[in-house]
């Protein structure tokens, strides 16, 4: 069993690591070590240098100054494959799967089983089955194309792929952010098994309760420096948060207004689509934040897409201010009499044009507002961009830089700012805080409340129940394409949401 061995040898040690990107220091003289058999959390805000650190360890980034030792031996990886051969395997936040290949192909991609030099499809399939079984994903058929899997299944395939490389150091970068609750439990169990096998797990997560529960060692980074490393329990959560952001944080969530009845403004009536939405009834009033809860994949995303005009063949009725509307495309949704905005699920593919500038991305949904005739008016453009950056306090160097150069939290702010420029009446948010840091999350919560107070109707899907509890005036919990429970006022708490998500509650508030 687990005899609390803090005596595990350092398997990986970094000395005086520094790395700059076009003049900006991302890591400054970082010393860091990680023991084998430990589950080690790396905490820090966006831009603290966590990603840079793990990219150096896993061979993605080079050159850098300083030295790295693995089992006491100095190493310098020139590619991710070299690091993987040495036993350092990273599960990245941006998925590293090939959508057009099958699950089995993907899992064995870097070193497939071979017969006579050619890939042995059958052995590869068995291998995939075994690895998927280990993480309780027997439902995933190894012959399916990754393209056809949901985001949460893809993430599990990603984990299976990493396991297949027999890691000695496993790095998880926000690896649980897209998972369903059941899968999260599986991953927790897996980390325990790996610990018993003396594998070191390095864990980056913005979910504090996850870190509290899983990790034995914590390291805090801020502005490219390693602030401190300590054992679990040595510091209080408030202290940790203070170390991360360098300032005190009082309330996590802005003050909610007292529970009240708001006149319905945006009404969803018996909405159906394929077999994913089975008669959704929901209303959102002006000034209200309505949360969508439930386990991942119960139709929440489809509901938001249907409201935004992305889905074909939607049944039922949507009304705004009493008038039926039926947006047929995002363009129609955004330019209709009732303007609708959607902050999409995946900011890298649906939210942003990564190679384009911050300014272009900010204006992407509202070019019509900054143009005179067919041409974009550079004066108006500049004013609008500055306004957007100021309003959301986006940390940018120059507005003409590619949006890809921003940190995750700032990228998400760009997506939100882009949609605010269209002056929407209804704002749909699809898990807007996924994979971003605590500080930015809090800014987003505050902004949501301000927008509600301005009279916007907000529908907010989140996989983080604490967020729903903290932010929403009402929470609708979805299960298998229907809304099973609506919670209001003081009835909104994590227990109630969890119970409703699993569809096990008996006292449904009609």
């Amino acid at each position, binding site marked *: 069993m687990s005899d609390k061995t803090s005596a595990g040898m350092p398997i990986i040690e970094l000395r005086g690591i520094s790395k700059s990107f076009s003049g900006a220091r991302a890591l400054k003289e970082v010393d860091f070590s990680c023991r084998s058999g430990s589950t080690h959390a790396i905490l820090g805000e966006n831009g603290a240098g966590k990603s840079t650190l793990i990219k150096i360890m896993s061979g993605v980034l080079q050159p850098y100054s300083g030295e790295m030792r693995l089992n006491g031996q100095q190493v310098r990886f020139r590619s991710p*494959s*070299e690091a993987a051969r040495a036993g350092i395997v990273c599960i990245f936040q941006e998925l590293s799967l090939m959508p*057009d290949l099958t699950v089995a192909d993907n899992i064995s991609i870097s070193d497939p089983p071979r017969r006579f030099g050619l890939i042995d499809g059958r052995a590869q399939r068995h291998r995939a089955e075994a690895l998927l079984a280990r993480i309780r994903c027997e439902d995933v058929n190894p012959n399916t194309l990754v393209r056809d899997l949901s985001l949460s299944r893809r993430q599990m395939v990603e984990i299976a792929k990493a396991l297949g490389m027999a890691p000695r150091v496993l790095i998880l970068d926000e690896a649980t952010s897209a998972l369903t609750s059941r899968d999260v439990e599986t991953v927790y169990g897996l980390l325990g098994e790996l610990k018993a096998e003396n594998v070191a797990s390095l864990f980056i997560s913005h979910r504090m309760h996850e870190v509290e529960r899983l990790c034995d060692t914590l390291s805090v980074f801020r502005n490219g420096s390693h602030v401190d490393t300590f054992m679990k329990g040595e510091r209080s959560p408030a202290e940790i948060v203070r170390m991360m952001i360098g300032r005190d944080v009082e309330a996590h969530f802005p003050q909610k207004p007292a529970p009240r009845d708001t006149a319905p403004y945006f009404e969803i009536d018996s909405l159906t689509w394929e077999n994913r939405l089975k008669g959704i009834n929901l209303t959102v009033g002006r000034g209200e934040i309505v949360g969508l809860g439930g386990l991942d994949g119960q139709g929440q995303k489809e509901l938001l897409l249907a409201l935004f005009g992305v889905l074909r063949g939607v049944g039922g009725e949507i009304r705004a201010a009493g008038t039926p509307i039926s947006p047929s495309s995002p363009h129609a949704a955004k330019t209709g009499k009732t303007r609708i905005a959607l902050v999409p699920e995946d900011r890298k593919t649906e939210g942003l044009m990564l190679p384009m500038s911050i300014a272009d991305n900010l204006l992407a949904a509202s070019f019509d507002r900054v143009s005179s005739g067919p041409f974009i008016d550079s004066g108006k453009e500049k004013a609008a961009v500055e306004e957007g950056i100021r309003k959301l306090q986006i940390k940018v160097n120059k507005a003409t830089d590619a949006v890809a150069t921003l940190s995750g939290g700032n990228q998400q702010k760009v997506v939100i700012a882009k949609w605010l420029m269209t002056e929407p009446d209804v704002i749909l948010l699809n898990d807007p805080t996924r994979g971003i840091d605590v500080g930015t999350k809090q800014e987003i919560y505050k902004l949501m409340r301000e927008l509600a107070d301005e009279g916007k109707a907000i529908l907010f899907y989140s996989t983080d129940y604490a967020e729903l509890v903290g932010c929403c005036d009402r929470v609708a919990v979805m299960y298998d394409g229907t809304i099973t429970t609506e919670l209001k006022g003081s009835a909104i708490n994590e227990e109630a949401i969890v119970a409703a998500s699993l569809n096990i509650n008996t006292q449904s508030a009609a």
Partner: protein
Amino acid sequence: MESFKNALAASIRQSRAFYGAVALLVIIYLVYNILHPHGFSSAVLVQNANEMAAIAFLAMAQTVPVLLGGLDLSVGAVMTLTSCIASELVHGSPATILFGMVMTLLSGTAFGLLNGIIVVYGRLQPIIVTLATGAIAIGLALFIRPKPGGEIDADLNWAVTNSLRDLVETYHLFNPDAGWFAPVAWIPVPLLALLAVAVLVWIPFRKSVTGRTVYAIGSAEGAAYMSGLPINRAKIAAFALAGFFAACGGLYLAIQTSSGNADVMQAGAYTLNSIAAVVLGGTSLLGGIGGAIASLVGACILRVISFYFRIVSIDPLLQPLIEGLVLLAAVSLGALRTLRVKNNLDLFR
């Protein structure tokens, strides 16, 4: 058995475009044979196979760079260059003939290899690199053969452009009228050559790590890199393989015409048709989906369409117009899937 059925169902679901192309080819070729006065005869099949072979090889060549998400504009030129090389080398004693054939294939492969090296280490777009190297290939071809001509072994020409029976007879391999041989004696040699190259070269490549990497790059290059795949090696191999297939086309063309001809117009037309054949076969121009066998089918469809002009009387002046319209209609079939899409976002993935 059950698992085989499931695998087949999954395969059909995942490659609808390919199975659609096969069905289309079967239908239009059957109708062609029904309408043709001498349909369903070995003679018609042999003639058609001869006309299909070069473009089929080129379509296979084009497939590999397309799977990477690129285009190779030099395939037609490499075919022309290698056919000129063949017209210099492929005659004389059996040993020199064999040597000439090997050299022809090697030179095409080397040219493709060079394309790959320039693309990878020059960090350039394949389309522009191959536009340039294609012109270089034509230049070399003109240098080797300023005027059409050259010599190809006559026996070889006869044996390769006819039925299997004629091949056996030409080289006195065994009694061509043997009873056991009759069921396969009618098969055209060019068809066999195509299948042999597909089975002996393409399928092993597809099942190799390098081949798998080519698909991975076309599917998501960043993810392929992060998975530690040999990106550079796979890209270079892809272009080298394209060069090899193009050289197969060139060698065949030289044997078929018994000469070499540095025809600039022909090279360009073949390159463009190879792209059309790849798309008709169901390979995605975005990369990652498809394969050389599919392109082989696509090339056959393209050729069968042109066969129809022989049996249906149409003003020759209208031929390009009609060919264009039919091609457009055929590729539109591939877009039918978008009618089934219920989530518009899927159209952009």
